[in-house]
């Protein structure tokens, strides 16, 4: 297991499940032998029930996505010993279970993680401060409003007001059309075809060859 291999290098893994229904939806995936960081929507949960060894958290309010301006899953961030971001938001697959769908090889990303575990801030995979500032530039103010609309939608959903919730989920999607999180979490909570006129499969088909995930900043991958 990746965590067991790297923890000796003063290294921790924190996985965060961005699931509005918490344990109900994320739970079945949190007892796997592999880190639960794939999008399991097209396959059943694993049968094996091995206890996870790393810190695996549940985030019903999508707080981490809000704080870090994340728009999809799985999104990885590297944080150094001083609590500073050294590599910003990036698609982070550490296994190839869904490679046949998204096309990203996990090996280059795992190699990068290993390098960072060993070399820390001296790793070539760590971003310079200048590059980080570019990437972490202030976001579109509509994104902030979108987060509030999404948060209200979640509250309304949890208190049984589905019709009103859908209205606010749609507004969040309108204000931040780049967020797959807002779309996919909402689609899960009701009948997506009936309530949003679409499904995840249809939306991916509409990309018509354009990648679902952006390229990673790794050797051999183009922008």
């Amino acid at each position, binding site marked *: 297991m990746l965590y067991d291999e790297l923890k000796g290098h003063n290294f921790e893994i*924190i996985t*965060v*499940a961005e699931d509005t229904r918490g344990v109900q939806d994320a739970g079945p995936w949190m007892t796997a032998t592999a880190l639960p960081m794939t999008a399991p929507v097209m396959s059943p949960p694993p049968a094996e029930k091995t206890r996870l060894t790393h810190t695996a*958290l549940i985030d019903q309010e999508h707080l981490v996505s809000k*704080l870090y301006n994340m728009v999809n899953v799985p999104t990885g961030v590297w944080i150094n010993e001083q*609590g500073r971001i050294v590599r910003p938001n990036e698609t982070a697959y550490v296994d190839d279970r869904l490679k046949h769908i998204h096309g990203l090889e996990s090996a280059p990303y795992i190699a990068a993680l290993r390098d*960072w575990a060993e070399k820390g801030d001296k790793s070539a995979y760590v971003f310079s401060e200048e590059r980080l500032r570019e990437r972490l530039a202030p976001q579109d103010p509509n994104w*902030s409003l979108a987060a509030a609309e999404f948060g209200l939608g979640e509250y309304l959903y949890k208190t049984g007001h589905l019709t009103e919730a859908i209205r606010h989920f749609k507004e969040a999607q309108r204000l931040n059309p780049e967020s797959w999180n807002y779309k996919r979490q909402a*689609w899960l909570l009701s009948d997506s075809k009936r309530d949003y006129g679409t499904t*995840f499969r249809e939306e991916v088909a509409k990309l018509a060859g354009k990648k679902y995930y952006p390229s990673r900043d790794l050797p051999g991958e183009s922008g």
Partner: protein
Amino acid sequence: MKELRSTVVYDDVAVEVNAAEAEAGHLWLTTDDLARATRFELKPQGVCRNSLCFPLPEARRQEFVRNGSSKTWFNLTAFADLVQQPMACENSADFSAWYFGLRSDQRQELASLQAPDFTLPDLDGKPHSLSDFRGKKVFLVTWASW
């Protein structure tokens, strides 16, 4: 001011309040409800929660604070604007709910390259914070069942 029961969701915690709405889109709370819903209190130096204080612009104080006969009212929506806090609301015939998102102080950390702290439960409900792991390299990754 027209008074009504309302739910305020602040820092993702929902609290029922006896709100008032002087103008459309403005949410006034009593200072008691303000404390209950947001843990912020109106002090001479500003709107404070422990050592975190936001001073109110003196020239515009009446936009934020109104003294009633027995209660003091505070305009939470004007305050949200002041601290660059996004807001969403749902006001229907049966209920009223106001959601307040992250304030500028909560988001600022990203501009300073410091990873924002958070506290979330594990599968057993035990809380863990990012700051628990200060001194170690942390690979933080989100995922979902969807």
